[in-house]
């Protein structure tokens, strides 16, 4: 099976199953720096959409605006058709630096989102156990973050986000601190999670390969001011093995095409 990359302009008509819609969002930092300019973007339910772009394109800013951690200068974000006004229970965030509590063990970290919501100890630990099993950290429940490898720490961060049962998972360069070998394993696990969990994933990365390999849809952002520049949908058969996908001419062509279009901004 060959893989095609289609490029299209974002059309508001294709929003039937949008879990998150970003409408006319702009962001200005003091300076003034125009971080985002008039961004319109739809994130389809049950899919993994990636925000890809060179550093300074505002992709993390956009993710934090969706998370409700940053208030945009103008524009609105709708999650399940309701406007975002701060963080909400239907969204969960996975942090680039994991943001684990160093003084709390794995099970408390995984259950921390539920702890903040006042879920009783026994109940939240049962849920945490379930996700600890899902991410493959059984036996590490009583370990502390500094006793875990970098990769394991991010698994804990992921499990914490899954445990609050949010519809939308926001992942901010979750694999950037992880070494290449572990990252590949992680990417495969993430694809399995997307297929299994049926949640909406919004993924930020600066790695073209990672974006093409993981995404149902890629929003390519241009820097300064950050705006949506292209939407790319890598079409590939998820039935191929990960190694086969990475050798596919279509996969490689998409990576190359994105690189060619981003190259100008890097120089």
């Amino acid at each position, binding site marked *: 099976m060959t893989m095609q990359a289609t490029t299209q302009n974002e059309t508001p008509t294709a929003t039937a199953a949008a879990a998150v819609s970003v409408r006319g969002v702009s962001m200005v930092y003091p300076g003034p720096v125009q971080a985002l300019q008039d961004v319109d973007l739809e994130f389809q339910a049950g899919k993994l959409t990636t925000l890809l772009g060179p550093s300074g394109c505002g992709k993390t800013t956009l993710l934090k605006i969706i998370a409700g951690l940053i208030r945009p200068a103008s524009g609105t974000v709708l999650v399940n058709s309701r406007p975002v006004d701060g*963080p909400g229970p239907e969204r969960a965030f996975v942090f680039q630096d994991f943001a684990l*509590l160093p003084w709390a063990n794995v099970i408390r970290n995984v259950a921390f989102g539920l702890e*903040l919501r006042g879920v009783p100890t026994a109940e939240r630990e049962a849920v945490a156990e379930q996700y600890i099993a899902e991410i493959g950290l059984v036996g590490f429940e009583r370990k502390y973050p500094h006793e875990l490898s970098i990769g394991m720490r991010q698994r804990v961060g992921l499990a914490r986000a899954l445990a609050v049962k949010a519809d939308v998972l926001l992942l901010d360069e979750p694999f950037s601190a992880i070494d290449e070998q572990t990252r590949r394993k992680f990417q495969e696990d993430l694809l399995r999670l997307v297929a299994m969990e049926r949640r909406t994933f919004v993924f930020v990365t600066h790695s073209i390969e990672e974006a093409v390999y993981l995404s149902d849809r890629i929003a390519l952002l241009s820097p300064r001011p950050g705006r949506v520049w292209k939407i790319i949908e890598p079409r590939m058969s998820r039935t191929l093995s990960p190694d086969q996908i990475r050798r596919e001419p279509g996969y490689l062509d998409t990576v190359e095409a994105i690189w060619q279009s981003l190259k100008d901004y890097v120089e």
Partner: protein
Amino acid sequence: MSRLDYRSAALRVASFGIVLAAWEYAGRMPVSIAFPSLFDTARAAAQMVSDGSLIRALGITIVPMAIGVAISALAGVLLGLATGLSRRTEWLGIPLFLVLQAAPLAALIPMLVLAYGVGLATKVLVVCIMAVPVIVLNSYKAVRHTPVSLLEMGRSFLGSRTQVIFKIILPAASPVIFAGLRLGAAAGFVGAILAELLISPTGIGDLITYHQSIAEYPQMYAAIVSVIVLSALFLELLDWLEFTLFRPEGRAT
């Protein structure tokens, strides 16, 4: 204990050994007739313990010390947290404590004596003046330096302000707060001795002044060393308290 712990314990003993040996050597040279050797000092200490004078003096000195350090710890940490948590109170407190930290506070003692007399209250006040600034400033900095991503994590998982303070900011700040408490307690101990030397001779300060005046230098040094030992023991206790209460993971900073 692991092998590494044994090695670090051995190194500690070695470092003490070197200092004590140097003391003994310097005392025997002698560098000054007012500088007794380690053994003379130890002998004097043993005699002062057995006749009860050292214990009695420590019992007196420890009163302003304990009251002052306790007040400073409580007030200092609370003030530091208040200024750290709220931008509104920051400007009120912090410049004052920065000035106090830099000022030669011993120079204020005559003024305090004028205002509050030569009793316990003034001595407690001296301890507080020495101890509070560093405790306030450390607690303030500790709160301000809470990792941003932990704060964002707390907000994004719907923590209330109270939850974020008690479940994230305070535990994250505790190592630096305790570092401030250790520095503050040490400064407070200095303040207590200073008060006894400069205001009215009581307790250990009295022993130091008295034995100095009759040229019993081993006794004088024994009194000084007893304060150092007391202070070191108290700092160890603080360490123990910190690790049992706030650092279940046993992570060193």
